[in-house]
């Protein structure tokens, strides 16, 4: 049986053009020079040393790379940096306020909402985006609208507990 081999119809391996991208990262204006194919997560981690954002599957299936773009939660692994010129990006490093942890960060600690912690930055950014959307009131709705963030330690109950505490205007807000 002859197996198919994917080959490009034209040689693209020599392409080396780069672009300057200006955007705001966690409130600070940044300029980076990137290749067209550089993903936002690689720019954050490799060029800006913001390693809080995690690369899980790199295919949009796990949510670990979730960041906020102009206030909306998106997947940084399926985002080209060159397409975010002029945007405002918030990563887990930009979540805490001047007076310490964001209430949701504290709630994650209080509710034991992680074991290994690898999915946590994405969970917290996603939950902040979800609360801003204002579509989840009940626990079931929160579970549904947080389903794009996987936790393979199985800390999901604690994660939802933590979000419910803040989402429902609990003791922290």
């Amino acid at each position: 049986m002859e197996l198919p081999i994917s080959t490009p119809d034209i040689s693209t391996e020599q392409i080396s053009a780069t672009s300057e991208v200006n955007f705001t990262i966690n409130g600070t204006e940044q300029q980076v020079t990137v290749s067209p194919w550089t993903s936002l997560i690689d720019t954050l981690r490799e060029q800006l040393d913001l390693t809080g954002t995690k690369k899980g599957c790199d295919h949009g299936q796990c949510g670990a790379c979730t960041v906020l773009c102009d206030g909306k939660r998106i997947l940084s692994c399926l985002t080209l940096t060159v397409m975010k010129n002029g945007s405002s990006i918030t990563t887990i490093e930009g979540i805490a306020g001047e007076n310490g942890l964001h209430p949701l960060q504290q709630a994650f600690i209080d509710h034991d909402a992680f074991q290994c912690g690898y999915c946590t930055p994405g969970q917290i950014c996603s939950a902040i985006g979800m609360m801003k959307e204002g579509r989840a009131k009940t626990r079931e709705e929160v579970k549904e609208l947080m389903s794009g963030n996987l936790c393979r330690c199985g800390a999901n109950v604690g994660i939802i507990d933590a979000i419910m505490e803040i989402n429902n205007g609990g003791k922290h807000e």
Partner: protein
Amino acid sequence: MNNFNFAQASETDEAISMVNGNDNSFYIAGGTNLLDLWKYNITRPAELVDINKLPGHQAIERLPDGGLRLGALVTNASTAYHPMIEEKYPLLSKAILAGASAQIRNMATNGGNLLQRTRCYYFYDVNTPCNKREPGSGCSAIGGYNRIMAILGTSEHCIAVFPSDMCVGLAALDARVNVTGPDGERVIAFSDFHRLPGDTPQLDNNLHHGELITSIDLPPSGFEKNYSYLKIRDRNSYAFALVSVATGLELNDNIITDARIALGGLAHKPWRVIEAEDFLKGKQANEQNFGAAADIILRGATPYPFNSFKIELARRSIIRNGMMALDPSTAIPGARPV
């Protein structure tokens, strides 16, 4: 993953001229499927043309006939949560929200949703033959593990299913797709937009290279009183459908005056059988009649060794969703008709 050039288009004509004539040049909007396909070496673009800044395709607007126009560049989330969609086309809203995750819906656009490709795992595995990915190489799914594959409209060359939920809703609503391209504008009926695999499974739809979806039009009737979207999958959320059903009914007392039933997860395109919808007209809305309609819809279904369960699952889903449409308040995942 290959390297590629990148360009940003500021006008529609400019975008078309960049992509037209270059088979390896593609439009990019949300990019949620295209970049995934690129990472798997399935799509190898020489150039991506960013169309996100194009004016004119960014809004949801009323049409003179009472329908709605959905801009191709509006995101899936903005569409599903738009007040006019929630009010007049809740079936579409539910279908969109049944798909993907909140993050992906924030990124993915309406035009791109129509153009997403199958999630057949052999299509995604570049080490296996696949006629959709490499025409003429063979179909690994037919003799392979075909649990998620199609039972309707298949060919000896491809048994992949089209994965969109939104498009099942759009099919039920009789939407129209407005496109523009090198040869001008045209309108494509939703049922004519996607293709069956036949002997050209590499073609998912009837859009020509260089053509651009500009908007999707919804007719005035949104079936907002009696509708339901039911999605059956291996986990409760964030999974593709094994079977999904979009049902819209017009009722006079309990007599059906108009019916729409579209199915996902069963074929290379959203599946509708007009004969089944016509059968329901003038009949009582009950399990027996929905079952008879299901039998018409599933006539000729051809199972493969691992997906024969889909025939009975689809039949039950059609009946259950018909009953749920009688009271849309029951139309939540896991809900049973009272």
